[in-house]
């Protein structure tokens, strides 16, 4: 028994949900470390319950472990109770499979899924005993701190902390990076030698080789590249998505996690082009798996994990070209095996009656629609190609089918938004209520319930709205009050997000390297788990920005010029900046762009991939 394991076990019963900290779950991969050449700690900068729900980790975990001489293990942020025990008893952050400290690993890899997890990265590095700043790490070839995930499309606010960012899909490039590492490790290479060679791998971004100079007005003047690194780093994509590696087993946790079920990825990318949606652009091109692949992956995962629930993962499942036959076959299997099938990410506009009947067969829960904007004009601005007619006809089908609760998602603070658009949200809700009571076979016994959930719009890199400012807090508060005053029915419930959270999100999303110091300072002041409302300390963040000479409004509330060098301009996500500028102009004219299946709008992905998307 290792002494670290003893130390952990000594205190494990003092913490909540101890099974999160000791591993041993069904499906976890144990290897003989004397026979392993490269060790990879896959870190999720949030707690086990959240991190274990992440599909990307499941894919890359299994993929890496297929290689006999590589060992990928999992690592999560401990809850506050266990962190205190770890710090008091000198328990370094460890990986769940071997219970070995991750500071001894070759790679420490984080997935960056949301900006509010950035302080979690610093805290985990610190708990591990790994220098938080890249420049302070050893010269030897070990302890390479890398990151992937959607936030890596603008990783600049974290540039000082990471050795490498991996752009795009990791299924191939992760192994290429590990292969290079093992080759150079055997040759006795140093850390810098490795980083220089790694920078030559497509999709690999080594931030320390890129240097930024700023103008007096604070915008970027120019970037200089050293060490022979490429001027542009292009994200990686999997060309044959139907054949891409997919695990036939997941680690099955003992404790309940957020998404405690089998997920099967049915498609990647999105044809829709909603102008606020980062995922809709950075995961292009649109690629789907065949029905055969989806059914067989569902079967083997259900059989191997023992889960009795499966969910289809994608940005818009109903855009799958074989959605009807696919669901028919899946339901045949899941019904026979008493497995529940859940279908998130269905779109309003192609929500057919037959589709609804299929879902109803599976489970009757509430319906959720992302309408995003309160008026047709605003929905056209954001290119959410959903008409009120479609929303109404879908609600009608749903009500006639026995549903009586509808949840509607909106954003507040969208470009060009006026008070009229806000009042429009309340009016739309009212018209849905009126529709409900006009239906003869509406569900009896209970009234209709409309929940409106309003998030504050966060402009993101690699979207047509990347240039847009975010509304100030005063503007958002005015709009929130207006919405509350406009809602008169007690059948409508309204909930909001904290605008301060959205402000921090936009700063971290659109920020540049000068923010690294503020993130470090905020973390030092005690900021962590920023996405948990009970831990979010905006006051400390503001202090940190002030101390580091950062004006939050420069990032949050300023319009970025079309010809300005953006902090992420040297990263190529295959969609061109010209396209985003064009789309931004079209948005301001409230003109929509058709989806990719209807007509190619020339975003640039097809040129980069070398083939038409459809």
């Amino acid at each position, binding site marked *: 028994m290792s002494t670290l394991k003893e130390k952990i076990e000594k205190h494990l019963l003092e913490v909540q949900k101890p099974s999160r900290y000791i591993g*041993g779950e*069904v499906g976890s991969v144990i290897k003989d470390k004397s026979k392993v050449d490269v060790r990879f700690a896959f870190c999720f900068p949030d707690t086990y319950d959240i991190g274990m729900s992440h599909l990307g980790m499941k894919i890359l975990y299994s993929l890496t472990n297929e290689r006999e001489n590589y060992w990928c293990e999992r690592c999560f942020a401990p809850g506050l109770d266990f962190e205190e025990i770890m710090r008091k008893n000198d328990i370094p952050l460890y990986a769940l499979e071997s219970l070995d400290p991750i500071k001894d690993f070759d790679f420490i890899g984080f997935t960056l899924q949301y900006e509010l997890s950035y302080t979690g990265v610093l805290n985990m590095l610190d708990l591990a005993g790994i220098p938080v700043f890249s420049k302070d790490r050893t010269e030897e070839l070990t302890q390479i701190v890398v990151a992937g995930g959607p936030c890596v499309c603008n990783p600049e606010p974290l540039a000082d902390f990471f050795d490498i960012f991996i752009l795009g899909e990791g299924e191939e490039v992760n192994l290429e990076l590990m292969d290079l590492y093992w080759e150079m490790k055997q040759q006795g290479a140093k850390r810098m030698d490795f980083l220089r060679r790694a920078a030559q791998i497509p999709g690999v971004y080594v931030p320390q080789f890129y240097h930024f100079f700023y103008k007096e007005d604070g915008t970027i003047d120019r970037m200089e590249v050293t060490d022979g690194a490429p001027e542009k780093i292009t994200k990686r994509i999997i060309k044959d998505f139907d054949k891409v590696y997919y695990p036939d087993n997941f680690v099955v946790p*003992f404790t309940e996690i957020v998404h405690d079920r089998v997920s099967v990825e049915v498609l990647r990318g999105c044809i829709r082009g909603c102008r606020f949606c980062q995922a809709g652009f950075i995961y292009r091109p649109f690629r789907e798996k065949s029905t055969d692949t989806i059914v067989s992956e569902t079967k083997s995962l259900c059989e191997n994990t023992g889960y009795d629930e499966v969910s289809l993962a994608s940005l818009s499942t109903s855009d799958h070209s074989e959605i009807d036959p696919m669901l028919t076959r899946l339901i045949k299997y899941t019904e026979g095996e008493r497995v529940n099938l859940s279908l998130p990410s269905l779109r309003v506009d192609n929500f057919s009656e037959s589709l609804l009947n299929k879902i109803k067969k599976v489970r009757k829960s509430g319906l959720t629609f992302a309408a995003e904007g309160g008026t047709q004009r605003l929905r056209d601005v954001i290119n959410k190609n959903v008409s009120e007619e479609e929303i109404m006809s879908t609600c009608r089908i749903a009500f006639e089918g026995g549903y009586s609760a509808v949840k509607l998602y909106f954003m507040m603070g969208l470009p060009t938004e006026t008070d009229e658009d806000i009042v429009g949200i309340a009016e739309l809700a009212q018209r849905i209520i009126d529709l409900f009571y006009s239906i003869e076979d509406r569900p009896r016994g209970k009234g209709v319930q409309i929940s409106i959930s309003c998030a504050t719009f966060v402009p993101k890199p690699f979207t047509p709205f990347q240039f847009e400012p975010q509304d100030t807090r005063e503007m958002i508060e005015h709009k929130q009050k207006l919405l509350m005053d406009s809602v008169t029915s007690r059948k409508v419930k309204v909930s909001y997000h904290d605008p301060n959270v959205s402000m921090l999100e936009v700063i971290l999303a659109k920020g540049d390297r000068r923010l690294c110091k503020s993130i470090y300072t905020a973390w030092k002041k005690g900021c962590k788990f920023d996405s948990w409302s009970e831990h979010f300390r905006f006051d400390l963040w503001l202090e940190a920005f002030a101390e580091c000479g950062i004006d939050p409004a420069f990032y949050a509330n300023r319009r970025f010029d079309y010809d300005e060098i953006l902090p992420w301009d040297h990263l190529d996500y295959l969609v061109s900046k010209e396209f985003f500028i064009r789309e931004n102009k079209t948005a301001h004219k409230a003109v929509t762009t058709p989806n990719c299946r209807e007509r190619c709008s020339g975003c640039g992905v097809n040129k980069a991939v070398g083939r038409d998307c459809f």
Partner: protein
Amino acid sequence: MIRVRATFEKKGRAKYISHLDLNRCMLRTFRRSRLPIWYTEGFNPHPYYSFALALSLGYESSCEILDFNLTDDDISMEQIRDQLNAVMPEGMSIVSVALQEQKITAIAKAKYEFSLKTEDVDGLFEAVCQLTAAPEILIEKKTKKGMKTVDIKPDLEVLSCEKSDHSVDMTMYLPAGTQTNYNPSLFIEALKRVTEIPFESENIRRTAILCADNTPFK
């Protein structure tokens, strides 16, 4: 349909699986095993299985009891054991499988073994002897109606109490089952109140589930 009773171990890392989590874990284990488990009938059919006794978080056991029904009468007990063992989590394994003989209500007591780790073995041993010889051992027990003071002395049967290099090792019977359930932590709490000697309990394990006449529950 056959009514099956499996005895299983829960050791090592598996001791951190809470009772609630164990339920979910067993459901998935059954599904992985592909045994023809019997589902309840009615509006929301679910596989029928139940644990005879809950085991406290952090305790090990060599004798946990799991009852379930199978729709296939011809399946052998060995086959059930092997099919489950092939898919059980680390630290858990089926020791034996048999048809259910007694009713759950026949369970009367359980045997526990544990060590009390201390620097002062002689002193602690003395304190344990004094406590077990006392006319009554009062403890505060949390019940559904709030805190209650209970005397565990009449129900406590100490089988052995021995000194070893760094600990006092004990074996005892405590009442278990549908009526009264005591676990060793009650005794340990009582000991903490009567002695100043620092000690830590470790390796608490349940090693037998018994009927009132001390015969194994079957």
